[in-house]
Structures are given as structure tokens and as C-alpha cells.
């Protein structure tokens, strides 16, 4: 048997480390009733299912319905990913979540020069309707809900999904699923943008109004803190920037002439599930409280569904280590517990090998099993919001809320989130936090087991998924086949109409549906809009 290191940090070290959360938030060793005197139960917490929903959206928590176990997956060709989806569904997964490759995310076809070496590497490649048909072959889109992580080309990919659903005989009015469609966090954090912020916002409000009329059960946007956190934000910054992004979308929707209660109920959220257990729980609870109050008081929404913040959570990819990868199973399980204790609507758990590669089928199954163990063996789902009333948790919830509201003031003074982004404000705040965290790791003020402490030279090698170049070749051939077999004149005319509509005020969704039905590619549709709106260039700052 391997001897493991048994050195315990000295008292001095433990003292230095114990005082802040992973976000650098000071934490007291003891919380008492004195910490929660400003909190009023009816006003600030209230029973689950009642405003401001701090304690959850449903009176009975998970008793009626567990969260959706939705594992993000996609790699290689549509056929390869289709096989992985069927495996996840047969293993008890309850929803699909599509990971697209970088060419698709950036609106480039596989034959574009920038796609070289990237096709099928970080997700599945989808260039035309034919790929979308292959991706969902044999999966009943009327019965399963699908989440698609796609942002700048969200309208194009969504149009493809709708046409496939139509071909399956599914009714758009009952179709369930989500498109991420959150461009603001792309400018802030993940940087997968195409067009400048304002036309990008127009595409999003086009989807709001199209869906309100034609696909009423679809989640039109998943306002995402996940990537903001992964880029280095603190918990408070994740909370603040994400919710302020949400406010920006609501404001743009209203400015586009929509009634707040027609589109806000279809806005959903996506948060990170990071390692600092109580801070994360407080973050989700604060998010619900803030959103409910903002929607009721700032936007005068009357429909309770507009007040209710629904969220998906994913464990923190950035916390996974390449060293001692089995440790990641434990990290992920603990991270996943926080959103469950805070009433998440759906959850993705990362696989142990994701600091090294996209997950193998075995690793992805183990990640799903982790959720099933939490759901069915630990008993944590039996009572709603079990940590409510904890002096510590309630105080943290309040502190995070106050910090987020202070950020709202700063951003409002700048004129809104679009203006703040144009000034580089959230980007700089996040870069600062990322650097500060890295320095604290170097100084060992923050311990990463297996990396800066308890590092061994005995890493157990694990088998990883290696994606070779065949997906690229297959997709290039598929693209050539489609281009040779479609009605070229119909493609051209649909793209011309798309351009004209984008230059004017027409809703772009019906125009995109026409282009998709003509088998126009993602790259062609995105290029048509590039011609009209140009491309966004970030000014690089360090």
C-alpha cells in the first residue's frame, strides 16, 4: 500500500488559511443571533414558494420533482455525440445538454481557415441542418428537454433545432429546452462573441418575442455566471454581474416593446458550483431574493413566474486538477451538494478527467452517478432549504446580496451593463480577482490538495479521450456533400433576405428558419450578419 503524507499544517498555517472564503471574503469563527438582527423572516426569507423565494421556488422543494440531471456532452461528429446521448439517457440522465465545438460556437464552417485543428475537439461540430438531424437521430424531441450551449450563433442553431423538431412531428408549442443565448457574459468572460454588443442584443430580443409567440415553453436565455466565475470572479462578482446581465436583457426586451410578463418567465440562470460550500449556498439563495425584488419593484412585473429565478448549476471546471485526478471525484461531489441544498432546478457534475481532456464515457457515467447518490442515498432532499435559519448562512446570504446591490449601483451609474462592458469594467474586476487568487495559491494561503500541498510523485495515470483529426475530415466531406446537393439559388435568396431583415427592423428568427430549411450553413448565416453588423474586436488589456 502506498504511504500517504501525514504532515498536518502547523497551527500558524491553519490560522493564516482559515479566515477567508475562496473568494477572499473574511469569515468569522462564530456567528450568533447578533449577526442576523437585520433579517426579518417574512420580508427577507418567507416560506419556500413565496416571495422573495430566498428559501426556494416550490413549497415542497424536491418532494414533487427532483432536479434535472443534465450532463453536458458533445465531441467529434454528430453521429459520435448522438451515441453518447443515447448512452447517457439509458444510464438515467433526464435531459440532454449539447456542447458545440469552437468553429460552431464562433459561427465558422469546418472549411474556414480558423477552424483548422478545432473541428470536433471541444464539442460536436454542427454546420448545417443535416448535422442537427444526425445529432438527434432516434431521440424524441417531443419527449426530452435539450439545453444547448450556444451564444453568438444561438438563433441559427435554435432555428435548426426547431426544424428538426418539426420533422420529428413535435409541436413547437410544447417543446422544452434552453438555449444559453447569453452574449453579455461572452464579452465579460468567455469571449466567444461575433458581433458588437448592440446588434447582439437585438438578436436576443428577437428570440424573446419570437418564442413568446411561437415556442412558449422554451427557455430563451440562460443568463450565466458560470463562465464569469471560471474566468476568475469571486462569488459576489459572479452573483452581481450575472444578475445585472439579467437586468440588462429585461431592459432591452422592454425597450424593444415587449411586456415584461410575457418574456421574463422564460429567462433562466446558470451558476457555478464552486468549492467554498457555504458561500455557494448563500449565493444561490441571495440570487433568488435579489431577482424577485428587482423584477417586482424595478420592473413592476406582476406575474409571480417573472419573480422566480430558476437556475442550473455546474460544478467548477476550474477547480479540477490534472494532478491526482481521482481527487476530482470528491471535489465534484462536495461542490454538487451546495446547489442541491439550495434548491437548484438542474445540475451538471464534471468528470474526473476534465482537466486533461473531454470526458470518457466511464468518467461521464461516474459523474452522473455522483448526482444519483446525492439524490437517493444522502437524504438531503427530504426537507426544503434545510440550512435556513443558520446564523452563518443567513448572514452570508445578506452580505452577498449587499455586495451585489453595490455593484448594481456602480453599473447603473455607467449607464448599464453594455456600457460597462464597453469600458472594460467587469473584465478588469474579474482579471484582478483571478490574479489575486493565483497569488494566494502561490503563497499557499489557499490550499489545492495534490497541487500546492500533498503533492505526490505517484499520480495514477488515467485513460483519457483522445480526439483525433477524423472528425474534421468527416465534417469537411459532409459539408461538401450538402453544398453539392442543395438548391443554391434558394440558399442565396434566403441569405439576402436575412441581410435585408437585419439591416432593417424585421425579426431575424423567421428569416433564419427559411435559411436553415434551405440548408444554409452556420458559417453562411453568420457571415450574412457579419456583412451587416461587422465583428467585435476586444482591446487586449492585462
Amino acid at each position, binding site marked *: 500500500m502506498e504511504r500517504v503524507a501525514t504532515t498536518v499544517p502547523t497551527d500558524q498555517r491553519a490560522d493564516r488559511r482559515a479566515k477567508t472564503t475562496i473568494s477572499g471574503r473574511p469569515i468569522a469563527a462564530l456567528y450568533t443571533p447578533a449577526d442576523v438582527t437585520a433579517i426579518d423572516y417574512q420580508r427577507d426569507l418567507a416560506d419556500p414558494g413565496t416571495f422573495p423565494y430566498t428559501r426556494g421556488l416550490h413549497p415542497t422543494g424536491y418532494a414533487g420533482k427532483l432536479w434535472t440531471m443534465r450532463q453536458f456532452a458533445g465531441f467529434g461528429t454528430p453521429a459520435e455525440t448522438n451515441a453518447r446521448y443515447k448512452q447517457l439517457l439509458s444510464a438515467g440522465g433526464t435531459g440532454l445538454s449539447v456542447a458545440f465545438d*469552437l*468553429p460552431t*460556437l*464562433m459561427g*465558422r464552417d469546418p472549411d474556414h*481557415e*480558423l*477552424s*483548422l*485543428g*478545432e473541428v470536433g*475537439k*471541444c464539442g460536436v461540430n454542427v454546420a448545417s441542418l443535416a448535422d442537427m438531424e444526425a445529432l438527434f437521430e432516434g431521440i424524441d424531441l417531443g419527449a426530452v428537454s435539450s439545453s444547448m450551449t450556444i451564444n453568438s450563433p444561438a438563433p441559427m442553431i435554435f432555428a435548426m433545432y426547431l426544424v428538426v423538431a418539426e420533422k420529428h412531428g413535435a409541436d413547437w408549442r410544447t417543446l422544452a429546452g434552453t438555449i444559453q443565448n447569453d452574449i453579455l457574459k*461572452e464579452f465579460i468572460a*468567455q*469571449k*466567444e*462573441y461575433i458581433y458588437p454588443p448592440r446588434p447582439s442584443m437585438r438578436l436576443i430580443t428577437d428570440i424573446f418575442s419570437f418564442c413568446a409567440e411561437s415556442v412558449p415553453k422554451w427557455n430563451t436565455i440562460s443568463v450565466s455566471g458560470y463562465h464569469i466565475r*471560471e*474566468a*476568475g470572479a469571486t462569488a459576489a462578482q459572479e452573483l452581481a454581474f450575472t444578475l445585472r446581465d439579467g437586468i440588462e436583457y429585461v431592459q432591452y426586451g422592454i425597450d424593444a416593446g415587449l411586456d415584461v410578463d410575457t418574456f421574463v418567465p422564460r429567462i433562466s440562470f446558470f451558476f457555478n458550483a464552486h468549492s467554498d460550500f457555504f458561500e455557494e449556498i448563500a449565493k444561490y439563495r441571495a440570487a433568488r431574493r435579489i431577482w424577485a425584488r428587482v423584477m417586482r419593484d424595478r420592473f413592476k412585473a406582476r406575474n409571480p413566474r417573472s419573480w422566480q429565478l430558476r437556475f442550473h448549476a455546474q460544478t467548477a471546471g*476550474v477547480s479540477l*486538477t*490534472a*494532478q491526482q485526478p481521482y481527487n476530482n471525484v470528491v471535489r465534484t461531489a462536495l461542490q454538487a451538494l451546495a446547489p442541491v441544498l439550495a434548491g437548484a432546478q438542474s445540475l451538471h457534475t464534471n468528470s474526473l478527467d476534465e*482537466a*486533461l*481532456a473531454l470526458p470518457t464515457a466511464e468518467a461521464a457515467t461516474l459523474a452522473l452517478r455522483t448526482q444519483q447518490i446525492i439524490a437517493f442515498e444522502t437524504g438531503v432532499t427530504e426537507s426544503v432549504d434545510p440550512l435556513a435559519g443558520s446564523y452563518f448562512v443567513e448572514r452570508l446570504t445578506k452580505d452577498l446580496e449587499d455586495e451585489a446591490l453595490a455593484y448594481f449601483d456602480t453599473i447603473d451609474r455607467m449607464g448599464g451593463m453594455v456600457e460597462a462592458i464597453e469600458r472594460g469594467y467587469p473584465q478588469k474586476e474579474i*482579471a484582478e480577482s*483571478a*490574479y489575486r487568487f*493565483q497569488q494566494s*495559491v*502561490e503563497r499557499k494561503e489557499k490550499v*489545492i490538495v495534490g*497541487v*500546492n500541498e500533498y503533492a505526490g510523485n505517484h499520480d495514477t*495515470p488515467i485513460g*483519457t479521450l*483522445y*480526439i483525433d483529426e477524423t472528425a474534421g475530415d468527416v465534417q469537411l466531406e459532409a459539408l461538401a456533400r450538402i453544398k453539392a446537393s442543395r438548391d443554391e439559388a434558394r440558399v442565396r435568396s434566403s441569405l439576402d433576405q436575412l441581410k435585408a431583415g437585419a439591416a432593417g427592423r424585421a425579426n431575424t428568427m423567421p428569416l433564419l428558419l427559411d435559411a436553415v430549411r434551405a440548408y444554409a450553413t452556420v458559417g453562411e448565416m453568420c457571415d450574412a450578419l457579419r456583412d451587416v453588423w461587422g465583428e467585435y474586436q*476586444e*482591446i*487586449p*488589456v*492585462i
Partner: protein
Amino acid sequence: MSPRIRVVIAKPGLDGHDRGARVIARALRDAGMEVIYTGLRQTPEQIVSAALQEDADVIGLSILSGAHMHICPRVMALLAEQGLHDVLVVVGGIIPDVDIPKLREIGVRGIFLPGTPMQEIVDFIREHARTRVGAA
């Protein structure tokens, strides 16, 4: 005092995950190096041209997307074409074990995987960057 080491930090390919590139750029600058960050989505041609224009001693490539086996050989070939044989090339990111020897073979000297301390990268560059004219 020796002239400062000049480093071009670049993010090639389509990927936008720039946390690592930015953090390392800042760490190198804090360590006293002259750092030029190219920003996102640079082609190998743009990166090598930046290195030439900036008279760089070091090129640091941040690649997390799996495209390294396309990008790195191209960068090395372009450097050779320009006669920039003594520019130190280092790569940081998600690089599968099987690709590490292949990258070393084409002349990538430093390969830094997730979890590498910033100080280790600073030390490596100090030790291996070309000696500038006039340096001690």
C-alpha cells in the same frame, strides 16, 4: 543591469478562455519582464509577426482547445523562415501526454500544464531566454 526579457503572450485558435494567458502575462510583468499580450484569435502568422516587430525573446502560447498540434508546428516553421531560431517558445494549457514529446521534438522548449506555479514559469523563462546583446 541587463535589458529586460521581452515576451509575446499569444492566444491562437478560436478559443476565448484567456484567464491563463492574462494571469501569466501579469505574473511575467510583475517579475520584471516586458510583456506584449496579443489578445485573442491570433493566427500563427500574426503571432510570429508580432514577435518580429517586438523583438521578442520569448513567445508564450496559451492553448486549451486541443488545436496545439496544428498551431505549434506552424509557429515553429514560420519562426525558422524568419530566422528567429533563438526565440524561446513555451506553451501552456491542456496538452495530452502523448503530444508532449511531439511538441518538444519540433522545438517547443517549455510545456506547462494546469497547476503549474507561476514562479516555475518565470524561472524557466529567466533560465532559457536568449541572452540579449549587452547582457551580462
